[in-house]
């Protein structure tokens, strides 16, 4: 990878990256994609987040859904681990709690495929300082 | 520098910046009690962990009490040392310390000399409100030192002496919380550690946790045994310190009373280790001259400097840490061991007593001597040349037990022949003394000229490492002196690194030399005591009619009648020794199975 040599380099890099993310998230764009983030902090992993992440990766591929499955840190809902955030193109992200393989299957079939809500959504209970807000 | 103005107990004080509250209070007669704190000012030794919390005082504006030892005066500070809050805190902390301390004061070796006991008395502790579980550790008995860590209050003084001052590293704080204590690696016995038995841990221990192995009972029994001839030798530093045990001012010489007391105790002959010190000079001085001559003649095999070898803790130290230098120190035995070897041969023959029935006792300022006399190379068929070594403190205890009123004793003289000595023998008791004694003789032997000025002021003092270049009639001789094993290590490292070169080096393990030995009356943190003893030693030297070892007529006679000459075969056999590598790692490594 290229070194970031000046503040302008950094700014340009940031804008590039943000642009790509926007494209991924915007509905209808050819580069848009379903994004699944699995909270993989210690608590999450201990509650089975790894298995859930594997399930998502394998099943989404098997079921022919173009999706990006990534890990992320603690979403702070420790009582509801494992937690998974799903962002459909053009939509606000949704967080699901207590996700096991069965729940993951339901999320894929109902929410990811049809946009139907399923039980276990965790409403957002906080403000953040970044522009990206999720709203149910 | 601008003075700082503070108020302690309503007394205004001006002090230099950097002064601690403890020292500042002291200047106006306010003695804040301490326990873990130790400052041997003249020796640059300080222990200030701030751990015991006895010296806490109230500083206006601060949330918590402050330890006076570790708190620096700041301008405008208002300090109270005796408020209700301070007194309650101090007493409570003291009660806590006592609650984890055995209550066996009456039979404790340290009773009457114990800082903790005195403090409990001063603070008026009459009850312990917080009794509970006490910490217990395995007792450890080595040839010299007993460690009863149940009595440890974690002042860390021993750890500081062992590591910072001596760099021996036998001790460390271990565990944590309630079971924290100072111990050896793996809590093994001292004998399995790199301990040199210098006894400086004992010298600074405020409680009975560290004491010397007590041999007084064996001595009482032997003195009562009519079949045994019991003779005693007393080291030079003992006479400059023993008086302190009987309330005399530090630095009071009590040579005559010492001899009287020993005779009254029933020793058959009372001799002087100074005699053997003169003998040591003959052997070591001759060895120095021989090695110096070889070296100057270009003998590649010969290496300098020569290192003194009369300090047994130092011998243990270099065997452990500098085994590669084992051929550098003089092979001469220490005066204690030379005395023993001569006593059990020459003198035993003279009085017609079998060596098995002749008991040699030494009175030493030292605890390592207890270990030294048990070394195998100083035994003949299992019979040691020196049977028992008592510390100055043990002798005082013995005198008290024998109902002897030390202060009213008349002066007496050492017995002949091994009680006759010179001023050179006396100064063995202080740092710089052995090398000065050696130089007095070596100069005259080397140059064939008479010394104009016998005292070598340039070799004296209390600095940890000293060096001087002496003029041997045109030949410059570089002398190095170190006391304290940390200083010795520094000097040796610089020799190994080639950054300095000496012809001869004197090393003593204890601060100030033997006068500050681990077996001396306790200084209780006052280094002036050691300085006073040093003065006394030089005073005794100056008062001696003969001040050069080679002029001691009885030494001459010993060579004439028995040894022949210095470094003769007989001398080698009786007066010299060899050193062992004690550094080897003890790890067993298993070869891989194929």
């Amino acid at each position, binding site marked *: *990878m290229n070194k*970031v040599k*000046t503040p302008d*380099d950094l*700014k340009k*890099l*940031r804008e590039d990256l*943000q642009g790509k993310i926007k494209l991924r998230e915007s509905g209808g764009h050819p580069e848009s994609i379903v994004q699944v*983030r699995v909270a993989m*902090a210690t608590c999450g*992993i201990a509650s089975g987040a790894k298995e859930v992440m594997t399930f998502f990766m394998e099943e989404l591929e098997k079921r022919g859904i173009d999706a990006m499955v990534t*890990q*992320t*840190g*603690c979403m*702070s*809902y*420790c*009582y*509801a681990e494992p937690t998974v955030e799903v962002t459909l193109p053009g939509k606000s992200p949704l967080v699901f709690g207590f996700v096991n393989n069965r729940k993951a299957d339901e999320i894929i079939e109902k929410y990811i495929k*049809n*946009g*139907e*809500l*399923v*039980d*276990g*959504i*965790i*409403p957002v*209970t*906080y*403000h953040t*300082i*970044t522009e*990206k807000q999720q*709203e149910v | 520098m601008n003075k700082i103005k503070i108020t302690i107990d309503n007394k205004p004080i001006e002090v230099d910046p950097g002064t601690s509250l403890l020292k500042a209070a002291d200047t106006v007669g306010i003695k804040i009690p301490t326990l873990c704190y130790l400052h041997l000012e003249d020796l640059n030794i300080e222990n200030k962990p*701030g751990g*015991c919390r006895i010296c*806490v005082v109230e500083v206006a504006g601060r949330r*918590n009490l402050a*330890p006076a030892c570790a*708190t*620096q005066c700041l301008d405008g500070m208002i300090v109270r040392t005796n408020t209700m809050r301070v007194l309650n*805190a101090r007493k409570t*902390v003291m009660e*806590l*310390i006592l609650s*984890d301390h055995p209550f066996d004061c009456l039979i404790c070796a340290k009773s009457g000399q114990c800082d903790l006991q005195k403090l409990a008395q001063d603070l008026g502790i009459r009850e312990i409100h*917080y009794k*509970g*579980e006490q910490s217990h550790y395995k007792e450890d008995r080595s040839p010299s030192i007993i460690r009863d860590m149940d009595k440890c*209050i*974690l002042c860390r003084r021993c750890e500081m002496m062992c590591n910072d001052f001596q760099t021996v590293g036998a001790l460390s*704080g271990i565990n*944590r*919380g*309630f*079971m*924290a204590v100072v111990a050896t690696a793996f809590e093994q016995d001292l004998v399995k550690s790199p301990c040199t038995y210098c006894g400086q841990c004992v010298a600074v221990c405020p409680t009975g946790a560290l004491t010397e192995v007590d041999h007084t009972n064996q001595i009482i029994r032997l003195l009562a045994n009519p079949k045994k001839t019991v003779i005693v030798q007393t080291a030079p530093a003992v006479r400059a310190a023993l008086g302190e045990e009987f309330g005399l001012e530090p630095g009071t010489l009590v040579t005559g009373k010492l001899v009287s007391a020993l005779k009254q105790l029933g020793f058959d002959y009372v001799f002087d280790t100074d005699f053997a010190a003169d003998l040591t000079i003959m052997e070591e001085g001759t060895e120095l001259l021989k090695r110096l001559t070889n070296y100057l003649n270009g003998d590649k095999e010969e290496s300098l400097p020569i290192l003194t070898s009369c300090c047994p803790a130092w011998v243990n130290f270099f065997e452990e840490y500098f085994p590669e230098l084992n051929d550098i120190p003089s092979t001469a035995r220490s005066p204690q061991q030379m005395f023993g070897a001569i006593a059990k041969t020459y003198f035993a023959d003279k009085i017609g007593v079998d060596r098995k029935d002749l008991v040699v006792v030494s009175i030493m300022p030292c605890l390592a001597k207890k270990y030294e006399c048990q070394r195998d190379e100083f035994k003949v068929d299992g019979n040691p040349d020196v049977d028992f070594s008592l510390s100055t403190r043990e002798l005082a205890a013995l005198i008290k037990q024998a109902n002897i009123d030390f202060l009213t004793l008349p002066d007496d003289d050492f017995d002949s022949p091994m009680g006759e000595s010179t001023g050179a023998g006396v100064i063995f008791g202080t740092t710089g003394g052995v090398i000065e004694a050696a130089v007095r003789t070596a100069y005259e032997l080397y140059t064939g000229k008479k010394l104009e000025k016998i005292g070598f002021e340039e070799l004296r003092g209390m600095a940890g490492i000293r060096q001087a270049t002496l003029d041997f009639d045109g030949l410059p001789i570089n002398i190095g002196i170190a006391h304290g094993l940390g200083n010795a290590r520094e000097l040796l490292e610089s020799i190994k690194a080639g950054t300095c070169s000496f012809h001869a080096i004197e090393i003593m393990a204890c601060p100030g030399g033997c006068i500050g030995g681990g077996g001396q009356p306790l200084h209780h943190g006052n280094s002036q005591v050691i300085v006073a003893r040093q003065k006394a030693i030089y005073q005794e030297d100056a008062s001696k009619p003969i001040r050069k070892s080679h002029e001691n007529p009885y030494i001459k006679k010993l060579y004439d009648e028995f040894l022949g000459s210095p470094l003769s075969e007989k001398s080698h056999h009786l007066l010299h020794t060899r050193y062992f590598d004690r550094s080897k790692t003890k790890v067993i490594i298993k070869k891989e199975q194929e």
Partner: protein
Amino acid sequence: MSKYKMNILVCGGTGCKSSASDLLAAALRTELAERGLSGEVQVVVTGCFGFCEQGPVVNVLPDNTFYIKVKPEDAVTIVSEHIIKGRKVQNLLYTDPATQTKVDGSGAIDFNKKQLRIALRNCGFIDPEKIEEAIARDGYAALARVLTESSPEEVIGIIKKSGLRGRGGGGFSTGLKWEITSTVEADQKYVVCNADEGDPGAFMDRSILEGDPHTVIEAMAINGYCTGADKGLVYIRAEYPLAIERLKTAINQAREYGLLGKDILGSGFNFDIELRYGAGAFVCGEETALIHSMEGNRGEPTFKPPFPSEEGYLGKPTNVNNVETYANIPPIILKGADWFSSIGTEKSKGTKVFALAGKVNNVGLVEVPMGTTLREVIFEIGGGIKDGKKFKSVQTGGPSGGCLTEKHLDIPIDYDNLIASGSMMGSGGMIVMDEDDCMVSVAKYYLDFTVEESCGKCSPCRIGNKRLHEILDEITKGNGKPDDLDRLRNLSEVIKDTSLCGLGQSSPNPVLSTLEHFHDEYMAHVVDFKCPAGQCRDLMIYTIDAANCVGCTACARVCPVGAIAGERKEVHSIDQTICIKCGACLEKCKFNAVLVS
């Protein structure tokens, strides 16, 4: 696309569940089915909305209408009025206490959003192993701005003005700390990140390191720039393997991008970071102990002064801040000191992350503005007490803190208020206790911890805490005396007053605060020899209620010491001389026949 036109979200958080939210959901489903709307309107049970005091909570989408305190019988109204007629049910709407107006939810719905994420802003949003995701969310932008636009003095000025105080417990002004380190002259300086999170029950630092390691790296670099240090050290618990891995990865990525190393962003500023591992010693959270530990020594604290900012790691000026403190730095730089200081209370600015745990429904990390009340945190964000039990106490500040009660619930949380109420902020542990928790045992638990973790260097902490623990132990065993309480108090005060470091200076707080707030409970132990919470085994007596016992023999079979005798189908009895009070019989009995007193 979803076949549903509308969704009715019913909170299924534990708090709402206990107020019958599941019955409500069922009622809504039945009502929808009866009206033939099941194909168009869906009922979704969700996690906690963080508004449990007002539960059960219902949110109707897409118009985003919140209903509170909804009972199962309200299902009919919601469906007939809101779903069918499109009219909001006024009496179920939330009333804003400030304006006394009904919040109908069409505007910004944030009455349930007590939290504000500054330190946790990226946790759960980025892949911590991809620096690009951090950069996309403004990672290293603050560093870039600092290096190009500001002098170290200016940056320190911003941090000072922001009012940020150390989040590790002490609450010392971060800007002032930086300033002191920056003004000391030295050939080498260090900045250290204290990641030896040790308070039992606090895990926010771990979460930040696992979720957003770059923010720590960036902030340390800014700190280095300000103080004149080119070397940073992270002292991290070895028990946090995942955090270590992610931090290592992040450091390597930052190096590859040139955001660590020589001449960062062409500014001429050099900075790099190394890791040092803790090895399980709570006291190493104290900065002098931490520094000794980093130097390879026993982690024993030393007297301050000298402060680490003057004489720290290897004797060089060293600035130590904790993870959460660092995580606040980049936003302060980017959004300004005024923005930050507009959040919080007069003397405590910004937010604080709490690790909410214990007998609370929504265990988790909570980041709230300073000044939020304990009630809001526990009962709204935290969803109230588990299993519908009664709130008894909340412990803040870990072993250094105290136990607060009902009467403290409405105090705005900040450094000074917590200290004034006998507790402290600490690193942000917040453990909720209910009626089943014995406060004497809780105090004993904390002392157990302190005794275990005291380094042993100073006598009051080494021996005093042991004695406190022993006295508490005797009390819980029924051997206490009324004057033990005076002894506890005096000893606690002396330990606080005389100990060498913060550990001992605060370790008696759990004892003092419980003594003050739960005096009656202590008295019950030492006068009546009873444990009101029923937790102290030795004070309990198990008996069998003849009225309920059916003689099933289950208790006799489960008793590990054979203390229960009785024939089948006859009333059993417990031999008190043998009973070890293990409680096995109580758990086994299906007929409520085992009584505890």
